[in-house]
């Protein structure tokens, strides 16, 4: 019976997520149509400027995007197209948006993944240690550094790192990302060190604070005293009893943080270090007025965030036995 409840919950959650997706798409559409000198027009102008026969292209685009149809029809077309995987054509790179994304998503993915691994593991460890040794020098130091970490604007940190390690400073790391490197190579990893530090530092500082407060919340709980009264060694008390309870809010916060902080940070980091991820592509597209790219990447950002929240929700229900599925 418990399993059925879980499945029902997942299904309900999926339906909800689908609705939110629709909402997200609608809001995007709404924003596009409401804007002045709609980017569609600029897009149109750009596209037609690149061909010999503007009128044909204009006609094709109008037919494709249904620009002369009433709004609700445009909306339906829009949604249907998205669902079918037809995400438009990027004239600045002369390929379908879908293909553009397929080429570049991996760079964003590796940056974000590595940064999260780095910041989550270090952050949680420092947070735990800091909580256990509350009020000692280590704790104050860690808290101080985490304040600094969350206050440094990450794009400035990136520039400072470049300053430090580029020609005028130490020459340890190459500063601009070399796309020629094979993905699973050590050289690639080395090239990602500075970007990961840039993106990860702020995140790590945040995670340290969350982990510390989550552990502290649980340290004074009664069941910890019970565990000690059983004669369990301190490392088991903390490592098993406290940790297992603290991990719930920590994971939740880390995953929900993703859409807020991480994507924006990754966007900036890619631009500074020249990493050709989705953020940078979108950025280039903005200045080229290549709006299908911009729209799609914004949507992708929202959808990935949604998926992450969904997965986190479900994982949370598995981890916390107190949650009832009905």
């Amino acid at each position, binding site marked *: 019976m418990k399993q059925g409840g879980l499945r029902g919950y997942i299904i309900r959650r999926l339906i909800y997520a689908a609705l939110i997706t629709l909402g997200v798409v609608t809001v995007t559409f709404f924003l596009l149509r409401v804007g002045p000198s709609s980017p569609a027009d600029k897009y149109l102008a750009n596209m037609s400027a690149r061909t010999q026969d503007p009128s044909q292209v204009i006609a094709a685009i109008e037919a494709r995007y249904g620009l002369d149809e009433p709004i609700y029809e445009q909306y339906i077309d829009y949604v249907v197209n998205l669902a079918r995987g037809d995400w438009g054509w990027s004239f600045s790179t002369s390929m379908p948006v879908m293909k553009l994304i397929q080429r570049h998503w991996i760079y964003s993915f590796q940056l974000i993944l590595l940064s999260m691994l780095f910041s989550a593991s270090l952050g949680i460890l420092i947070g735990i240690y800091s909580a256990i040794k509350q009020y000692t020098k280590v704790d104050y130091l860690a808290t101080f550094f985490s304040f600094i970490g969350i206050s440094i604007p990450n794009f400035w940190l990136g520039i400072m790192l470049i300053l430090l390690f580029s020609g005028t400073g130490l020459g340890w790391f190459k500063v601009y990302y070399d796309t020629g490197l094979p993905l699973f190579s050590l050289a690639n990893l080395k090239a990602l060190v500075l970007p990961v530090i840039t993106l990860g530092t702020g995140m790590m500082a945040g995670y340290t604070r969350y982990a510390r407060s989550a552990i502290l919340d649980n340290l004074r709980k*009664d069941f910890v005293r019970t565990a000690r009264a059983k*004669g369990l060694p301190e490392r088991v008390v903390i490592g098993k*009893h406290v940790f297992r309870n603290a991990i719930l809010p920590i994971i939740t916060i880390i995953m929900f943080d993703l859409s807020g902080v991480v994507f924006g940070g990754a966007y900036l980091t890619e631009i500074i270090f020249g990493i050709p991820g989705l953020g940078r592509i979108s950025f280039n597209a903005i200045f080229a007025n290549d709006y299908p790219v911009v729209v799609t990447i914004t949507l992708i950002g929202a959808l990935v965030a949604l998926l992450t929240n969904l997965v986190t929700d479900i994982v949370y229900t598995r981890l916390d*036995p107190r949650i009832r599925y009905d």
Partner: protein
Amino acid sequence: MNNNILEIKHLKTYFFTSRGVVKAVDGVGFSLRKGQNLCLVGESGCGKTTIALSILRLIDSPPGKIIGGEVWYHGEDLLHSSGKRLRQIRGNQIAMIFQDPQSSLNPVFTVGDQVAEQIKLHLGLKRKQAMERASYLMEQVGIPRARERMKDYPHQFSGGMKQRVMIAAALSCNPEILIADEPTTALDTTIKAQILDIFRDLKQNRDMSILFITHDLGTVASIADRIIVMYGGRIAEAGTAFDIFDQPQHPYTQGLIACLPDISAQRDRLTPIPGMIPSLINPPVGCIFNPRCERRLPICSKEIPPEVFISGEHLVVCHLYSPLASPQDRREGINNVD
């Protein structure tokens, strides 16, 4: 005739807070015999829980600290033994259960896991055997369908059942001493009675020594071999149930007994003890009860009263019974009891 298995001497546990030093336990000593059910009784804040926690050194170390005293168990002073030795004793030879079973059980682990944890640790059993034993213990304390329910989580049990789980866990390694800190306080009356039955059974059938802490005099009356009444971090009086209920000597104890509602009595008002619990940061000089005491003597606000054995095991800590007081003072005391 010394089958005292636990001897506590001059125990002092203070809490160092930003508002001052709270003298939660200020010079307490007593003994526990094999198979004896010893009850620590007193109002909230009188230090009884702190004593219990101090025995196993479970005091939260900032802000609390055991600053003095000895706790003798099988020839060693637990307050000065090594961490390793202490952990061998905890849960194994001296076990403890706490007041609120809801918060004392870890919500994310199954009940079976939590009962079996000690078994694996102290008895070295493998998981399967430990779980067998755990389920046996749970049956023993009266949890129906123990086998299946082992896989359940604490929140799926009622208050009384949770407390039984805790008891099962505490008993799992056959401890010599069981310390129970207000085990029935958070439970309904009917459940209270059932849990108390378990304790009675433990004493009779297993010859287990129990240190039972409560503020409820009624509970105490039915199971105690010996009662210690505490006030303000110190002992006021100690004796058998008969001594305490029938012939209380300490003015505080007398006040407590007088407070008990009695249907048969011809009174229409309860008689509370006037005044308030003293601040443990700046306790009154001399006898800690003296500001509220109706029979205080001048010496009470100057010197700490001596411990006097009135008869057999009946102990009173009061100047009225010291050599300095006159028989007349004492007589008035005995007549005052209702």
